[in-house]
């Protein structure tokens, strides 16, 4: 089983919509897929029309509980199941801290679920904390949706610095999300990132009202609007994520299975620190 986590320290960047949409693509290709909603807001759970409730409460996530499996619900789409969020998950951080091996709990649970699934997708809450540390251990790759602004890149750099040199750290695969090509800043940041080989995936998710309306339609875009630009870009994104995490080199990308080059980001941070706007690459 492969585990991917939609993760970003920042909120509002498209983690949930990406998690739901990628999980749908995965299932549609025939992989038995589990979407695990780790965000107490429960947006992914809501989008899948599942009741945001864990029978047995947040404890089932902590104590490797036999009740865990009975909480999994099938989505409306064949091959896609959901492990719902529960508002009591807001206490997860605190409770993890009180347990032994606090960073390994979720990985243990993921292993228990592994035999029944080919792909596991975490929808993570924003922030950087103990739950996040658990995800780093449980996931094979972090998919980091990033809005193309300098501050977003800065936050990404913080994440990379945190994970640098850690044994067993997941692969970090940032991708641009909510991209509005009408905005010069977005265009500039995207091309800066490509020119400096910051390791972003080629696939980009455009800003899309189809995606925004997922909260109303309560369906992945692949189901409600399969020929939309958004649905197509998620399919491409999935293919690229799968290839990168299998170590298959992508044409034009800086080597196989590598995390973003830090030097490019370091230059950027330096530029921001000194107040200079990042320059266009020559």
């Amino acid at each position, binding site marked *: 089983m492969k585990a991917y986590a939609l993760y970003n320290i920042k909120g509002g960047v498209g983690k949930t919509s990406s998690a739901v949409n990628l999980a749908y693509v995965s299932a549609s*290709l*025939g992989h*038995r897929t589990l979407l695990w909603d780790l965000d107490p807001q429960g947006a992914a759970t809501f989008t899948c*029309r599942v009741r945001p409730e864990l029978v047995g409460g947040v404890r089932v996530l902590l104590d490797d509980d036999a009740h865990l499996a*009975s909480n*999994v619900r099938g*989505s409306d789409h064949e*091959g896609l199941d959901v492990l719902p969020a529960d508002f009591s998950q807001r206490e997860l951080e605190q409770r993890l801290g009180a347990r032994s091996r606090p960073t390994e709990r979720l990985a243990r649970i993921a292993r228990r679920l592994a035999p029944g699934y*080919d792909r596991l997708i975490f929808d993570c809450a924003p922030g950087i904390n103990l739950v996040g540390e658990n995800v780093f251990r449980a996931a094979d790759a972090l998919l980091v949706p990033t809005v193309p602004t300098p501050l977003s890149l800065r936050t990404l750099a913080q994440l990379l610095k945190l994970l640098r040199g850690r044994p067993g750290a997941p692969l970090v695969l940032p991708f641009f999300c909510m991209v509005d090509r009408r905005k010069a800043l977005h265009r500039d940041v995207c091309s800066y990132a490509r020119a400096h080989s910051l390791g972003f995936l080629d696939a980009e998710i455009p800003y899309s009202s189809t995606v925004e309306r997922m909260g109303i339609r309560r369906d992945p875009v692949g189901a409600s609007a399969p020929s939309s630009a958004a649905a197509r870009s998620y399919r491409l994104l999935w293919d690229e994520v799968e290839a990168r995490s299998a170590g298959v080199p992508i044409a034009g990308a800086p080597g196989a299975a590598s995390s973003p080059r830090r030097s490019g980001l370091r230059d950027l941070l330096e530029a921001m620190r000194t107040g200079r706007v990042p320059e266009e690459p020559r």
Partner: protein
Amino acid sequence: MTDREHLLTLPHGATLEGVVAGLEGRFRVESAEERELGSCFLDTFDVRLRERGLVLVWRGGELRLTTSEGELLGRAPCSRAPAFATDLPAGPLRETLEPVVDVRRLLPQVALDVRSRELRVLDERDKTVVRVTLESAARQGAGAGASANGALPPLVRVRGVRGYDDALDDVLRVLADERRLRPLETDELRHVCAALGEELREAAPKASVHLHPLQPAHDAARSLHRALLGVLALNEAGTRDALDTEFLHDYRVALRRVRSLLAQLPGVFPPAAVERFRAEFKWLGSVTGPARDADVLQLELPRYAQLLPDEARRDLAPLEALVESDRRRAYAELVAAMDSQRYRDLYDAWRTFLGSPAPVGANASAPNGLRPIRAVASERIASAARKVLKRGRRIDERTPAEPLHDLRIQCKKLRYLLDLFSSLYDEEDLAALVKALKRLQDCLGALNDAAVQQDTLREAAERLAAAGEAPPATLLAIGRVAAHVEQRRRAERESFAERFARFDTKKTRNRLDRLLPGGYRERRPS
């Protein structure tokens, strides 16, 4: 929790509309548009899937693999019904299927035109909690106004959603109690075939016939030959159409057994007949040989490609093209041979010969014909076993290729005898003997394959060069592959001594003695 599909049939006179109304009366139901789609059940010619309790269906652009009880094992999007496992998109379904299906083609057992409507039973959040599909289907191409034999009785499929078991139970209960729907009694394929009056394809029985030890040899031999003829007939159509490589392979295995049996039971049939049929079957062997060689080479090519570094794989393209054109030509010649008068005459004559009792007064020309088969077979097996041991013992590290080739042929002769006459001997001893012999044969076979492949590669390189179709990179690539093959040949050659030693053991010799009345050693006149 398994994702099992419940298949239900309607009571006589009930309609699908009635089922919808029944559900709508009890539950919140969302109905989709009716869709028309094609569906077909797929399996190999030798029904490998069904033998393992598996059902593979392609319907509406999706491939589904289930157990015969309806438990889903895998699904994959697939725009066309696949022919080979390699046509499937990479994923869990392909991974499950590939080892089972191997190189065999997936053949449609029965193809249907289906009209399907999906209903979703919803909860208070509009979540789908049960999926119900209503179907009416007919044999593909049957068209509107199909005769009774073309249309299927309507079918209702019910699938639960994980975590909503109560809803599934409720729906099933309503359908059973209020609409009187009943579950299918067999798996879906059997149900469809029964309804359409189609015969379900069965696996071919093994060609070893049950013989009685005291059966006259000519009669036993005829029984065996009739069974082998059955195998030839079974595989003929698939061979002509080159549906997959195994039809011709199975055809040729049966043919080799026919020829071996004719050669190894002297004095059972009149010699004139034997001579004549041996010559004709030899001809048949020779017209089917090149096609099989081409198939084998084509199956090897992907493995060859793997031996090369990524960037060199494309260099094999001229070789691949050559092999493909050879294959086509060889199959064309094979089909022409099968269409010929000579072929028809052979079959007719052979069938007649096998159907006739031994002519009176045949004893003189066929002295072994009336002897009990067990005695005759045992003599032949003993003789063949002695030859294997004798020849094998003479081989050491310096022995050239030819004696090993002879040994390989001799092992085959022994093996065919053991296989064909297995019903006459103790099961356990025979199985153990065959197992040991097979190990030896695998080594000799691999050795032979490697030698043949080297010759083939060299010849192919020469032909490509002569035709000006071999850029240096291609010749280099072929050379690299040949080097790997040579390495393999050497490894097999080195392992021969040990393999033979494992065969030529006291255990094996004791088994032979036990198996055959009178043992296997040569009877010396006392």
